């Protein structure tokens, strides 16, 4: 199905086409991993919404990205439970190994690192999402074993 149709299809779930805006942004973001101007325009055309409306909404939510991301997105939680269980040390280790600061992307485009607020895995802290894969009970020993699997 073409992307315009996919978006219009989504809007059938809502009494008003604007309801499909968040899901539509996810659809276009899946293509390149971030929302280019072109991607935003596609949504704007498919839902017949002003460009400013689309951009205004897209910039409110943390999970929509506005510049190119690495091939793999590491979203590491450092909220209280993860912090107590050592998440900040993991941030330092990741920074050291890949030269990757929170909010940044490695030079080779392999990883982007984002610090997340609570990801609801406090019983197995620290925890992270790599793309859509969930990893928990992270330690200094297993963190690179996990990350090295992502090329």
């Amino acid at each position, binding site marked *: 199905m073409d992307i315009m149709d996919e978006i219009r299809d989504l809007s059938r*779930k*809502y*009494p*008003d086409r*604007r*309801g*499909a*805006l*968040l*899901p539509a*942004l*996810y659809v276009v973001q899946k293509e390149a991993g971030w929302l280019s101007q072109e991607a935003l325009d596609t949504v704007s055309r498919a839902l017949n*919404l002003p460009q400013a409306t689309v951009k*205004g*909404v897209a910039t*409110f*939510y*943390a*999970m*929509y990205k506005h510049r190119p991301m690495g091939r793999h997105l590491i*979203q590491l939680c*450092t*909220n*209280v*439970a993860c*912090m*107590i*269980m050592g998440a900040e040390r993991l941030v330092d280790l990741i920074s050291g190994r890949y030269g990757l600061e929170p909010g940044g992307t490695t030079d080779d485009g392999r990883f982007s690192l984002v610090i*997340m*607020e*609570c*990801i*609801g*895995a*406090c*019983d*197995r*802290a620290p925890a992270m*999402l790599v793309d*859509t894969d*969930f990893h928990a009970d992270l330690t200094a020993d297993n963190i690179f074993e996990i990350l090295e699997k992502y090329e």
Partner: protein
Amino acid sequence: MERFLLKNIDSPDSAGIGEYLRTGGYASLKKAFGMEPADIIAEVKAAGLRGRGGAGFPTGMKWDFASRDPKFPKYLICNADEGEPGTFKDRPILEKNPHLLIEGMVISAYALKSERGYIYLRGEYPHARAVLDKAIAEAYEAGFLGGDVAGSGFRFDLSVHQGAGAYICGEETALIDSIEGRRGQPRIKPPFPVNVGAWGKPTVVNNVETLANIPLIVSMGAGRYSEIGNPECPGPKLFSVSCCVERPGVYELPMGIPLREIIYEHAGGVRGGRELKAVIPGGISTPVLTPDVLDCPMDFVNLPKRGSMLGSGAVMVFDDTVCLVRVCWRAMRFFEHESCGKCTPCREGTGWMRNILERMEGGFGRDGDIELLQDIARSIMGKTFCPLGDGAAGVVLGFLRNFSDEFMYHITNKKCLAESG
């Protein structure tokens, strides 16, 4: 206690409709269709169910307001945003018992005469998304959703609406904004969503766990249901227990169970046999407590008497190695990041408080910083559209009320009491 909400979740197929039906699933739905919608609302009222999303609002009363509103259509929204730090209690229902939630939603929709429902799921739960989509498809296939639910002639459509990383969208009016395709910014109440909600129509927003209680109330009847836990706010309750305990996890226990039992019997006590220093009883937005409240019943009635709240039932346990200034600073960084920016006291105040806590934690605290924090917190309290600001203020005031020595120590000695201890 017998498990109701998490019944069967240890079975590897617990999320599938086959397993759910085999263990008596969707029987409550059939029973509900033999009742009048108004009788179901009366039953939920009589059961004394209070919302599990944080505020503890009586569910039957909320439904009554929505059903009395003459406007149609009406919307039913399940709040699965689960963003309160420390909380992971809805997750096992979403990932392992999704049909219980769907059954609860269909019964609720029938009682409310709603034909359209949404599950507002946080973006950070991609696995739950996959499970829910599959469960919804199974429910359509089996005729529990769609144009003629279980042959009753009642119509109900349901889909997942995925959030995109904004804690504020857990607040019900911001959540409605987000479903409508807007930035999530709380609206002033009244009007309440039960009258003017999604697309201006009467809308009921209930938490995942609240809705998961509905099939139970229908099958047991209000009488037997209200014998579970504290009669003043009965029912089973999911507690997420985390941080410094031997066995962190989600525990389904009777409402009103003493905090001590949760920590020491179910979660295995403080890790390594260390000393208990502090407990946050209901997620990061609820004020911290000292160990002398261990015998407090964990419910909506008793925790407020001890200066805190049940919130989402997320018990965060801190032992004597944890620096509470650091915990408070991290909590404030969260509130600053998640403030939607609509109300000035919250938008500015959370940043100021984070800044002061940061310098304190870094050894640059100044005389008067404690008073300054209290002053800012009091200037936020009660002066914002939604309770996010109140939560942030209450957290700081709670830490300063119960642990001012530790904050003073940080300012005077430029280091941690925990690390020097």
